[in-house]
């Protein structure tokens, strides 16, 4: 214990991401996570292996899946003696599993780990209304026939309507898109800039598929071999034709469309992490080191900051701790919840006043070189099955870093940031091996 050593990324595996109510409409979170896990097991020869620990999670999770990750282990060809636990930190779930497990490896508590995440917007848990739920609970507590009848008599016709989960923030009633629409206006992000970012995402993802980049990162599932949201042939003209879907009450200041926002998506991802010894003793590749991570949260409820602005703070603190600047970063993986989110982050980091007053820096954090941003596409093109996004990014970035090797005599370095509901954000730094 207490020996701080390196935690490395061996590789990753995911299933192609599918737009909701498409190829995976009949697959549950457990099905998809198990499929992604089985692909990882097959790729790295982990059959019957007792892994140190598995952590994964889902944002939209049915209460029967209280042990989702452990159930996925039992449904996979890993040793059934592999322990597992669930994590839930909204869209940062996947990245948080990587960071938490890496810390356990660094501390010497475990030798190997699998991080992951899954989400299904198609197979979402539907719950009964609060009225019906309270009546049923009262019925359950009732002892006499009279009490039972009284409980049942409280059910009203409108209570019978089931309730599907929404993406509304509980404290504001605004959907994530509506929140981002406000932030997008506050940071003066234009429709054109958002459409350009969306186009770059589709082009970069399509090119990465074309050159075979995802061949050892993605396992086909249910007939899909590529992410079904990918539009290789999209163009600025096509994106410009789409109607705005969020922030309509803003009138002509509304700029967010289905093209520059992520769609509801189904999918799962996994990442194999290990100590250097464990990977080397099994002749497994080492793609990257998990250097460090940082979580942040913003006070968005009364609009002090935008809902999805926490990564701005997480990144600044993380780079500060590591003594790094944007000049030291070769790849920026900024999760594209919405094009407006990424562009608001970039604008904040370029804003001297904001960086001085809110980030406590001497001046602007800096400008992100667009040629280094989301080079293999991101969520706008691939889609965004909430908890699965972190694993997708970590595995892709680790591979990209490994391919690049060294930059100016030092290991290539990548920065990840993921925004999440509740005003949360998580950032991480990886370095090439």
């Amino acid at each position, binding site marked *: 214990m207490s020996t701080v050593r390196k935690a490395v990324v061996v590789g990753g595996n995911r299933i192609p991401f599918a737009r909701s109510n498409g190829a995976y409409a009949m697959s549950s979170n457990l099905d998809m996570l198990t499929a992604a896990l089985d692909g990882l097991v097959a790729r790295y020869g982990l059959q019957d292996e007792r892994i140190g620990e598995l952590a994964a999670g889902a944002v939209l999770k049915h209460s029967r899946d209280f042990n989702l990750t452990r159930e996925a282990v039992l449904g996979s060809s890993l040793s059934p003696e592999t322990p597992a636990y669930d994590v839930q930190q909204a869209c940062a779930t996947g990245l948080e599993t990587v960071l938490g497990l890496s810390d356990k490896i660094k501390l010497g508590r475990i030798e190997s780990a699998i991080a992951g995440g899954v989400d299904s917007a198609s197979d979402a848990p539907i719950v009964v209304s609060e009225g019906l739920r309270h009546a049923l609970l009262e019925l359950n507590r009732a002892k006499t026939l009279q009490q039972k009848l009284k409980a049942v008599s409280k059910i009203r016709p409108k209570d019978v309507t089931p309730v599907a989960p929404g993406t509304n923030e509980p*404290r504001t009633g605004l959907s994530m898109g509506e929140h981002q629409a406000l932030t997008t*206006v506050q940071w003066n992000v234009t429709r054109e800039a958002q459409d350009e970012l969306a186009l770059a995402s589709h082009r970069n993802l399509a090119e990465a598929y074309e050159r075979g980049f995802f061949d050892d990162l993605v396992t086909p599932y249910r007939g899909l071999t590529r992410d079904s949201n990918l539009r290789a042939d999209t163009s600025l003209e096509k994106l410009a034709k789409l109607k705005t879907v969020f922030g309509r009450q803003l009138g002509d200041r509304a700029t967010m469309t289905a093209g520059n926002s992520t769609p509801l998506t189904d999918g799962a991802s996994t990442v194999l992490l290990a100590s250097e010894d464990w990977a080397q003793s099994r002749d497994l590749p080492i793609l990257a080191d998990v250097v460090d991570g940082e979580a942040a949260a913003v006070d968005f409820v009364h*609009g002090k900051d935008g809902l999805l602005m926490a990564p701005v703070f997480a990144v600044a603190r993380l780079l500060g701790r590591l003594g790094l600047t944007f000049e030291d970063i070769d790849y920026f993986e900024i999760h594209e919840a919405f094009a407006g989110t990424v562009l608001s982050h970039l604008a904040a980091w370029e804003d001297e006043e904001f960086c001085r007053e809110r980030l406590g820096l001497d001046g602007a954090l800096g400008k992100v070189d667009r040629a280094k941003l989301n080079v293999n596409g991101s969520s706008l093109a691939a889609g965004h099955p909430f908890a699965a996004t972190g694993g997708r990014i970590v595995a892709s970035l680790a591979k990209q870093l490994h391919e690049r090797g060294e930059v100016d005599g030092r290991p290539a370095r990548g920065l990840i940031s993921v925004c999440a509901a509740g005003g949360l954000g998580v950032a991480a730094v990886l370095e090439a091996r």
Partner: protein
Amino acid sequence: MSAPARGIETVELPEMPSLSRLYVGAAREAAKKLVGKGKGRATLPAARHHVTGVLPDLVKMTEYQALLSETKLDIAPAGYLHALSFPAAMSVMGRDDFPLPLLGMVHLRNHVEYRKPVLYRDLLDVTAWAEGLIGHRAGTQVDVVTEVRHAGSDDVVWRGVSTYLAKGVFLPSVDKPRVAEPREEFRAPLPTALWRLGSETGREYAAVSGDFNPIHLSSISARALGMRRSIAHGMYTASRALAEVGAQKGDAFAWDVKFEAPVFLPARVCLNIGDSTDAHGAWVHSAFVGWSPTSGRRHFVGSVERL
């Protein structure tokens, strides 16, 4: 309780009066008024209504907390104490010598000082009276004051002043309507929250507050009183804004709200809450405003302030 000024009679009520009976009385009086020509009196009753030993109803308070999205703490929400003490205020307005008709009164403004926390198991004394009868360009307005004390104590822990307008009622010898105040131009800020209020909102708040004024219950009962649809209780919107100001307001605060355009149900209401802090970053004040995203009209505007 402190002794009222000389010449003011204290009326001891044996228990909290029934609001439904008060509304029936008000309706009867309204029917009479169609024949007669108002009461014509221009003074307020020189009386304070006093109820001792009032206990919050934990079931009702819990339902109130659930409806207004308040965390279910043991401390009674400020708006729940308004609802709890409201029948005493209504009984003052329902007196035969009260100069304004009770039904159809418009709630213009509400100011509450919640000085010390009240727990659901605290026994309370409630005192209510009317004061400040003055002319308004559209009728006559009056303040109804309600004070809540811990039973047997002199310290006021909760004090509410509700300002009502009797529209179109002009009393002799009450000063002439003032010149209309210039209307503030309202430009909607960016919202920080959105409420989706269903047509059941009025009935749900009536159930937890006991305020069954027919204008809030259904479009049919509202139309009977000249409204085109039912409207949300002003205190529902104010209480929900208060709940959304959140835990930062602490245990002692003042809560003020001015009601403007009514919220016809069902409705979407945009809300903006802006916080201000002192030099140390501690919360001192939140301003809130609610408006219609469709018409752009302001429904209410108010503030919560540290006491």
